[in-house]
Each structure stands twice: as C-alpha cells, then as structure tokens.
C-alpha cells in the first residue's frame, strides 16, 4: 500500500461531491436500469476515458478496499494503468490484478471471466448511457420514452437488422431489459458478457461522466438481452481456444502477429489467461515464437509493487 498524496482529498473529490454521487448511486440502485442525472465534475482525466467510472469509484472507495482496473479485459492496457495510478495516488489503496482479490473492479468494455462474488462491486465506464440514442438523438425524447416504457423504436431497430442481415447485427453494447422495466445500455461490453449480468450476486454500477448519468443493477436482478422468439439472443462463440492458455470459455482477442497473415487468438481477460497458464494449462501456440513473445508481454507486467512513476 502506498501513501496517498496528501495534497488532495482522499479520492480527489471533495466530500460534498462524494455525498452527491453516493445519493445518485443509491437512487440508481433503488431504480434498477434507470439513468440518474448527476452533477458530474471535471476529473483530471479526459471525458470519454473513464471519468464516470472514476467518479463512482472515487465516491465509494474506502481505505480498506482493494482495487482492480481493467480495460478491454486487461490490467496492462495503458488507460487501465493510468487509472490505477490515479487511484493509488489519490487514495493510497492497495491495487491488484487478481479478480478474486479485488473488492472494487473498474472496467471498460469487459466483465471478468472469473465469476464475481457478493463482496465485490463492478464499476463500468460508460461512453453513451442512452440505449436509444442512435435511434433518437434528443434527450428530452428518450427520457419520455423511458418514462412511458415506450421501447418500440428499439424493437423495430432489432427487427430491421434481422430483415436486412438475417441476424441482429449489434455485437457489443447489446441492449438489455433490466428488472422488466428499463431498457439499459450495458456499456460497450461484447454481448458475450451480457449473460454474466443476469441475476449476478454482485452490485453493478455504471458511470457516464461526460453525459452525467449513473445507473445500476443491484445484485440478483433480472437482466435480459432483447431478442425475438424466433431469433433468440446468442453470444459470440469461437471454433478455437485461447492460443496461450487453451481456454475454450473466454472471450478471445485477435492479435495480428506479423505482416504475413499471422494471427493468434488470446483471452482478452489477462488475469484469467495468466492464472490458467500458471496452473499449467497450455494453448496450441503457447510454444511458438509469437506465442512466447505475446505471453511475455502479457505477463511481464507485475505491477503490484511498482512505484508511482510520473504523474
């Protein structure tokens, strides 16, 4: 554990602001899937880079929390590194890359493969909180549509996909119905992750900083991906396993390994992949040169005890 920068308040936000955000979080939990407007502040990281998630995390984090930050499922992506550093600096809390050790997990674009438990909170960074936005640009209209549960445009959009492409083309940020009442944007997670949200034992909080909205899915809440009886929702599947760890149940990223068409498919969840490899699992390309190089860049980032670095 590092000492938090005494020049700023614990969590950067002043106490009034934290209280305001906690009130918004409580309201969000009370009305699952409803987007609560909150007076988002300018954070020292840019809008669109996780300021909503950061403000939610900053408002609920305590000195005993253990924080994990992922982007694209990985702890070592630059923005995850940057956000983790920010919290180390302004809270001094312990950070981890191990999903099971974390009490708070801030994420962009993924839900970890390792199932979360009731003592964990997952905080999503959300770019566009409004699931109806690309059908209706006006906030005044979309709020009215939510109020009336008037989701016709969404069903029409999904139907048009089927008539045009033979399938629902939405592959990420796939809309869900929460608690049978509000259609909600799950943030740009692949639809592969949608089933993990349903009846989950953990609290899920969503922060959209630029759009100034907070919403939530409390534990054990129904989260149903929208579909049609004759076109049921289905998730991405691969006819291959992770090239490094051999997992056949994780979301795979495609990595271009050379300029001759070489590809590897590896777990996007770096902790999951590393854990499996540490337990002795091996994927088909684990021993290849590209596989070894990739494996090295993915594991050479043991950041638990590193210094603060340049702010």
């Amino acid at each position, binding site marked *: 554990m590092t000492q938090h920068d005494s020049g700023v308040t614990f969590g950067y936000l002043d106490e009034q602001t934290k209280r305001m955000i906690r009130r918004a979080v409580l309201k969000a939990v009370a009305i699952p899937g409803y987007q609560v407007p909150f007076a988002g502040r300018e954070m020292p990281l840019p*809008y669109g880079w996780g300021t909503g998630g950061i403000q939610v995390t900053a408002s609920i984090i305590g000195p005993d929390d253990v924080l994990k930050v992922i982007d694209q499922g990985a702890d070592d992506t*630059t923005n995850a590194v940057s956000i983790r550093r920010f919290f180390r600096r302004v809270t001094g809390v312990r950070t981890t890359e191990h999903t099971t050790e974390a009490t708070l997990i801030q994420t962009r674009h993924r839900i970890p493969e390792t199932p979360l438990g009731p003592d964990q909170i997952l905080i999503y960074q959300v770019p566009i909180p409004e699931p109806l936005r690309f059908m209706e640009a006006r906030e005044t209209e979309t709020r009215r549509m939510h109020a009336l549960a008037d989701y016709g445009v969404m069903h029409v959009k999904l139907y048009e996909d089927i008539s045009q492409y033979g399938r629902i083309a939405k592959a990420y940020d796939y809309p869900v119905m929460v608690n049978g009442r509000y259609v909600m944007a799950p943030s740009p997670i692949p639809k592969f992750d949608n089933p993990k949200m349903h009846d989950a034992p953990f609290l899920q909080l969503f922060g959209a900083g630029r759009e100034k909205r907070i919403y939530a899915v409390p534990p054990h809440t129904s989260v149903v991906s929208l579909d049609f009886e004759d076109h049921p929702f289905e998730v991405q599947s691969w006819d291959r396993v992770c090239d490094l760890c051999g997992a056949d149940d994780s979301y795979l990223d495609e990595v271009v390994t050379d*300029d001759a068409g070489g590809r590897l498919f590896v777990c996007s969840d770096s902790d999951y992949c590393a854990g499996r490899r540490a337990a002795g699992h091996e994927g088909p390309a684990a021993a290849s040169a590209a596989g070894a190089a990739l494996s090295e860049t993915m594991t050479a980032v043991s950041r638990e005890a590193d210094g603060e670095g340049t702010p």
Partner: protein
Amino acid sequence: MYVAVKGGEAAIDAAHAQLADLRRGDRSVAALSLDQIRDQMALAVARVMAEGSLYDPDLAALALKQAWGDVAEAIFLVRAYRTTLPRLAATRPLDTARMVVRRRISATFKDLPGGQVLGPTFDYTHRLLDFALAAEDEPLAEPPPPAEAPLDPDMPRVTDILGADGLIEPESDPDADNPDAPVPDLTREPLTFPAGRAMRLQVLARGDEGFLLSLGYSSQRGHGGTHPFAGEIRMGEVEVEIIPEDLGFPVTIGTVTATECQMINQFQGSKTKPPQFTRGYGLVFGFNERKAMAMSLVDRALRAPDLGEPVVAPAQDEEFVLSHADVVEASGFVQHLKLPHYVDFQAELDSVRRMRRAAETGEGADS
C-alpha cells in the same frame, strides 16, 4: 515482424518524459515565466479562465505553460483543478453598469451618454507583421498619455436607454414565476433539458469559443437569422460582491475583468407581444469580444421557442448547442477513440465475417 500488443507502465513513463522534454524545448532558450505569460499572453490567459470557468490569471498562466501553449489542454487543467475546490459562497450578480470601463462601443447610436470609448482593440489595426517586435530588445513603447477628460462614471447600458421607451423587451428574470429561487449552477447541477436561459447562458459563457463563433456566424448567414445589431460592447473591471451570512450586507471580494455584449435584434411581434427589439446577451471573463459577441448571437438564436419563432437551424436548437459546446467534453470524447477498442472491434469483426460468409453462401447468417 513481430507486432507488440500492449503498452505498459514503462511506455507511459517514457511518453511523459518525452512530453516534458519537448515542452521545455531548447534549454539554451530562457524558460517562460508565469509573469510573462500572464501579462504578454493575456488574451490566451483570458480564454483559459473563461472556458476553464475559474478566474485566476496566475493559474491560467501556469496551465498554459504546462499545456505547451495548447489552450484546450490548459482549459482542461483548470477545470480539473476546479473540481478540488469547495463552493464557499455565491456572489451577487455583477453590476456591469458600474464597470470601470476601458472600452465601450455601440454600433446603434452615434453618440450616447458616456460616449464611445474605443480603448485597446485590434479593430482598425492593419494586420501587418510588426518586425520590430521580433528584435530581441523590443523598444519600450511609451505608455499612452492619460485621457484628457476622465470617463463619465455614469455609463448607462444602451439597452437600458432603449428600454426606457419600451422599444426593447424588458430583461426578464430567468425564473420569473419564482424570483427568489436560487440561480441554477452548471458546475454543481447536471444539465437537463429544457435547460432554461440561466443555465443556457452559463453553458455558453464557458462554451468553446470556436464552436460558438461558427454557430453565431451560421445564424448571420440565414440559419436561424436574428438580424442583430451590436447594441453595446463594454470591457473593463467589475467588482465582485458576496453577502457573508454572518454580516448580512455586501462585501467586495475583488474585481474581475469582463467583456459584455448586448445584441439588439429585430422581432416582428407575435400574438401576445408587440413588435419590439429583443436581446441577446454575452458575458465572458477577461477581454474577449469575439466570444462575447458570438455568445450573444447564440443566446438570441436559442430564445426562438420563447419568442414563438420556428426552430429550424442548429443555432436555435438548445439540446444540440448545449450538448456540444463544451471543449473539455468534446476534446475528451473525440480523442477517446485513441483508446483500445480491441474487444468491441473483435465483436464487429466477428459479426462482419459471419455476414460475409452468409452472403457468399447465400444462406441465412444465423449459423
């Protein structure tokens, strides 16, 4: 060729070090001091204060130095700093009629009480590069002689002169039904729609100058025209007052430099209102006429629904204008596209491949 996949801590540290090095530049050249920036780049400082919504010339100068002269980045730094400050009090409305005027012009009256005061302005300069300024030891210009007569302390606003005859709509209380209601505060409350004029003016006051300039310009070119006249533009120092709770009377806590613009616009009249002039208002920290004028054009354009005018152009569309006016929001979200999107791109790639396969085989894409 092996493609590196993921960046890490070391890369970030190295990037920061490179940035710091480039920002400082050639070490044989003297570093800029904050005094130099504050005094000699005062208009950049003013813009950072206005859009950063924090009046502090020294901090704005620091932000400009740290941001390597990138104004949007400096504004961002000031905004982020602002987040750490508690709200101590709300000031009384600035009384710009009591402004210590350095410049005051009207385009609607040749002369008026208080007179036209040209003051410091780029207007009427010829935009020729002045190579004398390039000399290392720039000759010290003589300070201008003091005015022959002191300015008239009574400098009524042009709109008040017109208002006395009822030719211009009265400036209505933003919340006329509830005059004692506190003014909404954009920095403490979320922006919701309809926003109302008080909130609108706050968004415009710290909105991106380039965006407002283009919108104002578009309204002049027929996209929601408002037939404006620059009724008055004034720039100078205004006192800022608060009423401390334990005192109960106003106390001046300082002065700010501000630029105010009152646009006067034609109005044909409606079922309920006689033909009269209407107002567009602009107020900006520091000396920034371009911004104040653009703001007042956009303010007036946004009043279209209140005045019963059809909303047909972007400049009249409250949601469109207010949602996209903030440079910190816009810059952040546009640039977030640099962040990795491997996961969602992978999902799209998968989706496109399936659809292409289906198109090739002529089968349904569900397989």
